[in-house]
């Protein structure tokens, strides 16, 4: 390991902190810890940060305000999301709520489409500029422990690849082998995991502007429900500069039960009458897939143990609450909190569980845990059969009848229409009331 300083003594730590994984959580942790004067090693198993990472395509970077002032002048983004659509669909119908605002197209912005190969690399280099040592192409194979069983480093697949540190920050992604090995997950279950699969489709920039009604760096985000063939989940379409990301996110267990293939589901979204005209002639330039921890607050592992913190997807910090679909921002927020906690704990010379208590305190005082706790019921509601199947059909039928002019028959009253549509789709008033209350409790 040429880029790692030689060891001074056999059991002296090589670094103050080892961060595993140079995704958004890891790089934010490394950046914050290095700025606090710690010796930080940032380990990445891919040949460059971002090479192992895929997501739908939108990041909400305001959490960076305190870390990288004027981040918007430096961050490699594709387009600023100024138009956001939510589509409820059946195989032949679609109701789209479309919102656009100029405010999201100027500082401090809101969401942006970005490519992970560029975004993650940029963030990792910010950490390097702050003094962290980035080591790529190195897979962590296990945790190391001292004689008392306390975590004090990691083993890697490099020859003589053991690295010791006072603290390990595990940001190793959704599979979170390190959190599992440390015994922090007592309830890891495939029920809480979704699979995201997408195609990146090439179109000339002017075509994207014309088809989606965009100009300059403005971008569109379309979220879809009812396009996944009855499998709980959703579809998405995001505009990059000269590509469009189109994909699906579905429950892995329900996907398996339905015996459908992910690329078939993507093909179904592409062929939908409300989507197909947008993609005419577009060629697939990259297909990709990854799992997502979407179970929410109740499925998070223990976040702290002696000598280790967990952040980002490794701690199930993805928020999949239907109208809010966020992950990178939570990873950045948790990573920064982990880095700050590392500085505090190392200064006090205590990286035991007690010495690391500041991590949870920081997550509680910011947005990471409050947002997740508030929306803890959302994943269940959003993936319920009524929200997934009955409601899109009901709403589309209702709107269709509202706008169908069937003269000489006179117009039916809206209340009568709603009752008839509800009955036709087997949705009782009690269901509506119950979901309404759950919705208010969840999102209110």
């Amino acid at each position, binding site marked *: 390991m040429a880029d790692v300083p030689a060891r001074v003594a056999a059991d002296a730590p090589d670094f103050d902190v080892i961060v595993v994984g140079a995704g958004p959580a890891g790089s934010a942790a490394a950046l914050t810890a290095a700025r606090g004067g710690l010796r930080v090693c940032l380990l990445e198993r891919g040949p460059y940060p971002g090479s*192992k990472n895929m997501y739908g395509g939108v990041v909400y970077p305001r959490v960076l305000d305190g870390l990288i002032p004027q981040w918007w002048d430096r961050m490699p983004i594709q387009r600023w999301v100024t138009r956001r659509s939510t589509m409820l669909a059946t195989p032949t119908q679609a109701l789209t709520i479309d919102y656009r605002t100029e405010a999201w197209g100027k500082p401090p912005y809101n969401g942006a489409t970005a490519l992970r190969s560029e975004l993650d690399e940029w963030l990792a280099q910010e950490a390097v500029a702050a003094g962290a040592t980035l080591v790529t192409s190195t897979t962590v194979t296990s945790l190391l422990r001292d004689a008392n069983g306390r975590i004090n480093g990691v083993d890697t697949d490099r020859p003589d690849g053991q690295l010791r540190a006072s603290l390990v920050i595990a940001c190793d992604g959704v599979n979170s082998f390190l959190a599992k090995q440390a015994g922090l997950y007592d309830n890891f279950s495939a029920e809480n995991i979704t699979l995201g699969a997408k195609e990146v489709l090439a179109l000339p920039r002017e075509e994207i502007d014309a088809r989606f009604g965009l100009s300059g760096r403005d971008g569109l985000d379309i979220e879809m429900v009812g396009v996944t063939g009855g499998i709980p989940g959703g579809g998405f379409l995001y505009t990059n500069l000269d590509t469009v990301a189109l994909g699906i996110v579905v429950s892995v267990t329900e996907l*398996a039960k339905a015996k459908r293939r992910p690329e078939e589901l993507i*093909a179904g979204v592409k062929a939908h*009458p409300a989507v197909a005209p947008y993609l005419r002639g577009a060629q697939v330039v990259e297909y*990709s897939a990854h799992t997502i921890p979407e179970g929410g607050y109740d499925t998070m592992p223990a976040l702290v143990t002696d000598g280790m913190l967990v952040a980002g997807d490794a701690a199930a910090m993805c928020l999949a609450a239907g109208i809010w679909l966020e992950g990178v921002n939570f990873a950045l927020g948790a990573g920064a909190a982990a880095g700050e906690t590392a500085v505090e704990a190392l200064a006090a010379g205590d990286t035991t569980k007690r010495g690391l208590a500041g991590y949870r305190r920081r997550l509680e005082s910011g947005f990471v845990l409050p947002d997740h706790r508030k929306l803890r019921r959302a994943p269940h509601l959003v993936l319920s059969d009524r929200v997934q199947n009955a409601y899109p059909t009901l709403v589309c039928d209702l709107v269709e009848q509202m706008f169908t002019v069937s003269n000489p028959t006179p117009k039916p009253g809206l209340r009568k229409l709603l009752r008839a549509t509800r009955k036709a789709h087997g949705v009782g008033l009690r269901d509506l009331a119950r979901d309404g209350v759950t919705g208010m409790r969840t999102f209110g």
Partner: protein
Amino acid sequence: MTGREPALPEISFEDRMSTVEFRVAEKAHITIDGDHCRGCTTKACVTACPASLFVPTSDGGMLFNYEQCFECGTCYMVCDSEGAITWTYPEGGHGVIMRKS
């Protein structure tokens, strides 16, 4: 929506996978225990794996390749039989490389 837009011609699975870069490691990062697979009635990995790496054989067993793996973990998560699929990350610097996602 009078006439449905003709679907884009779907690319073959082989062409789809050829859009992704893989730096194949010499050592497989997935191993499977075929005895489990022979008794498995669901074979959930076959349809759920986004890279379609698992192929059932006529004698009830399972063939797989690790070379075009997205390293997502879907296979072991949907597997009914604990220990049938052993899955780790490939050697550093190897495996899937994503650029446009």
